[in-house]
């Protein structure tokens, strides 16, 4: 019997991210992800963020959020390295019809590229907009939490490369303890807005990649209340069945009544 491994993941302290994008580069290098548009990229015009979004060839994305007053005398940068949340209850894994998306022994969520057929249901299911099709493989792809490195006893490339320890890798239990202490420290220092996003079980059973934020989730482009896709399954199914019953009744009434009426008409001289 395999030895149970404790769940591992990321704790990202956004307050110490400096936007260097070393995580993006390390991820691209280790996972051999292709460049955008054959390397001929255009500037987004959106701050220093030319990566733009997580997708099939960007499994890490450093977000640059500028919060400045109209006269630009006061302001701050919010920086956040975004990644797959490796949800404990993962919407993508839930809907995947091919079994390509699996939960690993590390409690991470991995898309097996050789099994994925590109139906893209997982893309619509992920509440964080993490997954996209990688044009090189033609399959849906996202962060694997460096599954191959974990198997070899190494930590993921991005957290290894992070120079400020904004991205920290470890067991979820240990990371939560560390994150809670950091929130406490920030609160004591006067940063009352500091809180953890996705660290507890209320959000999709817990996010194995959770964040320390200092503003509302929406400001960082994160959903305030992500839910499982199957929340609608029972109600949508019952309503569909109800629709089918109504159509069936309408059909029976129309074809039966007509028979009776027209039979009656035929009997007339």
């Amino acid at each position, binding site marked *: 019997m395999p030895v149970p491994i404790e769940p591992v993941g990321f704790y990202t302290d956004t307050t110490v991210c400096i936007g260097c994008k070393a995580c993006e580069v390390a991820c691209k290098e280790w996972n051999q992800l292709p460049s955008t548009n054959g390397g001929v990229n255009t500037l987004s015009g959106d701050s220093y963020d030319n990566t733009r*979004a997580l*997708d099939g060839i960007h499994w890490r994305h450093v977000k640059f959020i500028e919060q400045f007053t109209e006269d630009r005398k006061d302001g701050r940068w919010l920086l956040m390295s975004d990644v797959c949340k490796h949800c404990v209850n993962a*919407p993508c894994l*839930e*809907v*995947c*019809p*091919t*079994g390509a998306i699996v939960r690993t022994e590390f409690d991470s969520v991995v898309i097996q590229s050789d*099994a*994925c*057929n*590109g*139906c*893209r*249901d997982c*893309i*619509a*299911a*992920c*509440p*964080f*907009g*993490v*997954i*996209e*099709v990688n044009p090189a493989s*033609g399959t849906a792809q996202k962060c694997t939490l460096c599954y191959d490195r974990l198997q070899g006893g190494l930590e993921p490339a991005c957290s290894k490369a992070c120079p400020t320890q904004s991205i920290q890798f470890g067991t979820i239990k240990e990371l939560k303890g560390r994150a809670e202490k950091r929130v406490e420290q920030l609160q004591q220092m006067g940063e009352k807005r500091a809180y953890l996003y996705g660290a507890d079980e209320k959000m999709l059973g817990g996010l194995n990649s959770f964040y320390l934020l200092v503003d509302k989730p*929406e400001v960082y*482009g*994160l*959903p*305030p*209340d*992500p*839910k499982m*896709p*199957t929340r*609608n*399954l029972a*109600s*949508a*199914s019952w*309503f*569909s*069945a*109800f*629709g*089918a019953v*109504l*159509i*069936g009744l*309408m*059909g*029976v009434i*129309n*074809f039966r009544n*007509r*028979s009776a009426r*027209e039979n009656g008409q035929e009997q007339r001289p």
Partner: protein
Amino acid sequence: MNTALSSTFFSAPPEWGWLIVWYFFFGGLAGGCYFIAVLIDLFGRPEDRVLARLGYYISLPSLVISAILLTLDLTRPLRFWHMLIESNTYQIMFKIWSPMSVGSWALFIFGIFSLLAFLSALAEDGQLQRPAAKSLRPPGALGSIIAAIGGLFGFFVAGYTGVLLAVTNRPIWSDTPLLGMLFVVSAASISAALMILLAHKSGRTTPGLNALHRLDSWVVALEFVVLIAVMISLGPVFRAWLSAWGLLLLLGVIGLGMLFPLALHWRKEWLGNSNSTAAALSVLAGGFILRMVIVFSAQGV
């Protein structure tokens, strides 16, 4: 984009495009025509069997087109069989809580029923010299069982796509539980419309055609009610339809696809001989635009 609306606004569009719009349309026709044909077979008169045969003749080709469209939409089309068989273990791949998984199986199984009914219709028309095939349709016991089970699968194929959209995290799709119901009802309306249209073209004007006309009007009226219910159930997310898509929904679906054919049914003298053809065409156009608006509007926000 108003990000305060719903947590569904943070997901990414799956880029389901025209192939899926057409699939929703042909899938609706495949399921809808089959179950209308079953209703005629089970509850209609013997002389209406020619009309039921027409339904079966539409169902199978529509289903074949559906399967082709779905396969082509995959970014790895040759792996279409991964939906049914787990590719690493060669075990059955089935997830009862994933509408796409259940739908794949339903399409496969419904294909068998649709094929049986198609062959039976051919035999009854004398196009297939296999008298035994006639027993695959009512009124016999075997035929009735096939029709009843196949009809249920027909309903499923027509409606599961709406449930599939609801079981995501995209805005609009997952913000209402009523899309499956809307698709079931719409499948019935477009199927009745196409059967009416082809019955006129092929001279299959049996007495049952009047009942089919009336059924289509009832169903279009029901579809109107369900669409309004969808809009109400969206709550604040309805604002996503205050756009060009909403206008198309209003003019193309409600105006052209629902109110116009209902008016034609009410005022039969308006277009004379072309009345029923115009009504059927407008219902079909409305059904297509409905699917187009639902597929694209949720991906553009």
